């Protein structure tokens, strides 16, 4: 387990974050700018000292104000990937990668140099200087450098925030492989819902220095009471499903989610392979009777479990797919016209689904 319970006062801002997550997979800490995310990571890494509290990773206490324990950052074995890669400019890529591993020789490496280099696709950069690398390459080298320092926990502080969209798209698959192929737990900070959807096994919501909710991304993204998630234009549900069948004739893949099935454009994965889906609330329409003659492929039978009014004459609906929640954003006028009420059986018309594969 990773147990964090820390407080730190920074002028008028107070970080008072407490949460517990499994020490495996990827935990994403999500929050707006200024929510205290970076400060939280810096405290876990030992770069910033909390005023009080405890930090414990896999049974070892790294910080405990009550017992006056404060393990030095260099002894914590907590890897850190910063927003701006922070590669050492006077060293080659290889020397950057080896900087941490040389200093932690006594610990048996969890990952091999060649494996990390292959995973991140940086084999061709070894003798280059950081200044000659692109932003995406820099960030990959920074991730490799942190991985090779033998960390028991990898902290990533908005590693994609300083990159443009094509570079983000270039790095995200590496982060997914990192999560799935290397057994080092990750604590990943971001304010991007896309990254949450693709990376998070666990989700921690941080707002104004406090943890407002923690749980699975599927559970939290289906809730209507979390302003951090629903006060966004890209409000939507994250669904965890698995490949049910390939329909070669139609060129589509059936993905089982809860008690229902989604039809997706063909994804090249074997049956039972886990798949993450993200369905934006604005891409979901509602019908009270099964509609006929539609181009929309996904018409799902579900139960309307709750609805809340939203600003600008909108109404947000929570739909139960039998074990998974979907959100739909309608105009309040439509909701009134259809006499929508909680408990009612309806059909959800899903216009678009984003998917990403999980290993």
């Amino acid at each position: 387990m990773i147990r964090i319970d820390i407080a730190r006062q920074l002028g008028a801002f107070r970080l008072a974050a407490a949460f517990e997550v499994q020490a495996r997979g990827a935990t994403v800490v999500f929050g707006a700018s200024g929510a205290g995310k970076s400060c939280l990571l810096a405290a876990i890494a030992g770069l910033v000292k909390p005023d009080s509290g405890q930090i414990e990773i896999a049974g070892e206490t790294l910080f405990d104000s009550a017992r006056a324990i404060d393990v030095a950052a260099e002894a914590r074995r907590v890897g850190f990937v910063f927003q701006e890669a922070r590669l050492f400019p006077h060293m080659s890529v290889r020397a950057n990668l080896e900087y941490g591993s040389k200093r932690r020789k006594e610990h048996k490496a969890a990952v091999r140099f060649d494996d990390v280099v292959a995973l991140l696709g940086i084999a061709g950069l070894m003798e280059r200087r950081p200044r000659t690398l692109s932003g995406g390459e820099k960030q990959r080298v920074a991730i490799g450098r942190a991985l090779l320092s033998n960390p028991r926990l990898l902290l990533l502080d908005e590693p994609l925030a300083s990159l443009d969209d094509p570079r983000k798209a270039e790095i995200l698959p590496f982060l997914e492989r990192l999560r799935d192929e290397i057994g080092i737990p990750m604590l990943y900070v971001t304010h991007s819902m896309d990254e949450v959807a693709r990376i998070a096994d666990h989700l921690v919501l941080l707002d104004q220095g406090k943890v407002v909710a923690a749980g699975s991304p599927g559970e939290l993204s289906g809730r209507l009471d979390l302003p951090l998630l629903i006060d966004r234009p890209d409000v939507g549900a994250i669904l965890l499903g698995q490949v049910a069948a390939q329909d070669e004739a139609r060129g589509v893949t059936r993905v089982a989610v809860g008690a229902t099935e989604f039809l997706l454009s063909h994804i090249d994965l074997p049956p039972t392979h886990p798949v993450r889906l993200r369905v934006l609330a604005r891409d979901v329409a509602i019908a009270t009777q099964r509609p006929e003659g539609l181009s929309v492929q996904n018409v799902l039978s579900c139960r309307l479990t709750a609805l809340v009014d939203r600003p600008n004459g909108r109404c947000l609906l929570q739909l139960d797919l039998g074990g998974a929640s979907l959100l739909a954003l309608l105009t309040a006028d439509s909701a009134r016209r259809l006499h929508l009420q909680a408990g009612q059986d309806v059909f959800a018309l899903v216009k678009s689904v984003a998917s990403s594969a999980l290993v």
Partner: protein
Amino acid sequence: MNDDSRFLTLTPEEWTAVALSLEVALKSILFSLPIAILVGWLLGRRRFFGKSVVDAFVHLPFVLPPVVTGYVLLLLFGVKGPVGSLLNDWFGFRFAFTTAGATLATAVMTFPLMVRAIRLSAGAVDRGLEDAARTLGAGPLDRFFSITLPLMIPGIAAAAMTAFAAALGEFGAVITFAASIPGETQTLPLAIYGALQVPGGEETAARLSIVSFILALTALFASERIAHRTHVLQG
């Protein structure tokens, strides 16, 4: 040999002054550089009690008349001074009126110049890189030698070369503390001054002035080159 070439040829005595100047300048830089790096780093990066006092003390030779600095050195390191007498009693070592004394006076005079430049380069090192090194397992000394110091090198090199150029011209403190003894403490500026004090010394003064000019320019150019090259190397 015609008159022109004779004018451009240094006499053995003049060569001695040139060589001694280079020796004194080089030794004074080598001697004070490690201390200047430490003090520059302390002033550029650390907060500590009495920092402004240390800062002012370091800069004293910069603002005091050089003759005063030389006089203070004489009081401290002279054969009867508190430090000088101990050195003389224990090791038989004398600063006053020796090449070592000229070197000490030069080192003290150029010290503030070096500290100022090194302090700037220490302050310019990205602390984020040091934090990154910490998370990768590097302790304080390790961080200093693997990250901070290498990144300060352009500033240190430029500081050393500028100080070297200035060291070649130290006059007041050297003549006060070490006197003007040919082959021992009579560096270029002292030799020039000496030549101007005797009738018919103008030629020597002019030749040595040209040498001074060339040496100073060379050192300054070298300092620019080093700063540029190391900047390129370090991206």
